[in-house]
C-alpha cells in the first residue's frame, strides 16, 4: 500500500475502499504520462497546426471577400460621384437657361415700359399744349371782354397790360 500509513487496511477484506492500490496508482501514472507525452509532443501540435492553417485559409477568404466588397463599394461610390456631377451639370444648365430667359423677358418688359412711358409723355405734352392753348384763348377772350366792358363803363380804353394781369390773377385765383 502506497498510503497505508494513513489508513490501515483490513487484511482479509480485500483492498481498502479508500486507500489507493499500488498497481492502480502506478499503472494509471505510467499510462497517463505516456498519454501526456504523446499528446504534448506529437498529436496536439499537429492538430493545432491543421486548425490554424484552416483558420488561416478561412481568414484569408474573409479578407479577400472584405477587399472585394470594399472595391465594389468604391466602384459604387465613383459611379454615384459621377452621377452627382452629371446631375449638378444638368442643374447648372437649367439654371443658366432660366437666367437667360429671365433677363430677356426683363429686357423686353423694360422696353415695353419705356415705350409706354414715352407714349404717355407725348400724350401728356399734347394735353398740356392743348390746355395751354385753350387757356390762352380763354384769357384773350376774357381780356377783350374785360377791356370792352371797362371801355363801356369808364369811357376810356384800359391799359392792355393791366387787363392781362387782372385776368391772369382772376383765373389763377379761381382755380385755386
Amino acid at each position, binding site marked *: 500500500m502506497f498510503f497505508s500509513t494513513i*489508513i490501515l*487496511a*483490513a487484511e482479509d477484506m480485500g483492498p*481498502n*475502499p*479508500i486507500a489507493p492500490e499500488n498497481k492502480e496508482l502506478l499503472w494509471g501514472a505510467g499510462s497517463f504520462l505516456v498519454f501526456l507525452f504523446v499528446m504534448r509532443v506529437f498529436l496536439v501540435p499537429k492538430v493545432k497546426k491543421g486548425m490554424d492553417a484552416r483558420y488561416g485559409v478561412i481568414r484569408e477568404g474573409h479578407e479577400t471577400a472584405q477587399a472585394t466588397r470594399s472595391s465594389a463599394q468604391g466602384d459604387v461610390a465613383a459611379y454615384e460621384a459621377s452621377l452627382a456631377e452629371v446631375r449638378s451639370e444638368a442643374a447648372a444648365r437649367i439654371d443658366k437657361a432660366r437666367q437667360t430667359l429671365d433677363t430677356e423677358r426683363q429686357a423686353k418688359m423694360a422696353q415695353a415700359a419705356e415705350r409706354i412711358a414715352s407714349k404717355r409723355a407725348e400724350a401728356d405734352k399734347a394735353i398740356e399744349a392743348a390746355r395751354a392753348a385753350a387757356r390762352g384763348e380763354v384769357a384773350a377772350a376774357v381780356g377783350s371782354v374785360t377791356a370792352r366792358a371797362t371801355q363801356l363803363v369808364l369811357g376810356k380804353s384800359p391799359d392792355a397790360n393791366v387787363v392781362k394781369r387782372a385776368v391772369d390773377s382772376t383765373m389763377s385765383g379761381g382755380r385755386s
Partner: protein
Amino acid sequence: MEALATIARIAAEAGDAATPADLKNTAAAASAGYAYGLAAIGPGIGIGIIFGKAIESMARQPEAAGMVRTTMFLGVAFTEALALIGFVAFILLKFA
C-alpha cells in the same frame, strides 16, 4: 404487523448474541449515517446559495454568463468538497 414482529424478534435475538465486534459494527453503521447526514447540511445550503446568486447575476448581465458559470462551478467544487469528505468519512466508518 407480522413483519414488524419478525424484525423485533430478530433484533432481540441479535441483541442476545451481540459480541463486542457486532456492537462496534452497529455503532459504526449508525454513526456513519449521522456523519454523512450532518456533512450534507451545510454544503447543501451553500450550493443552493451559489446557484441562486449565479442565476441572478446571469439574468442581470447575460453578457457575463461565461465568466459567472466558470466561477460558479469553482465555488460549487469548493463547497461540495465538504460534503464529499463527509461521504468519505461514511465509507471509512461503514466499510473500512
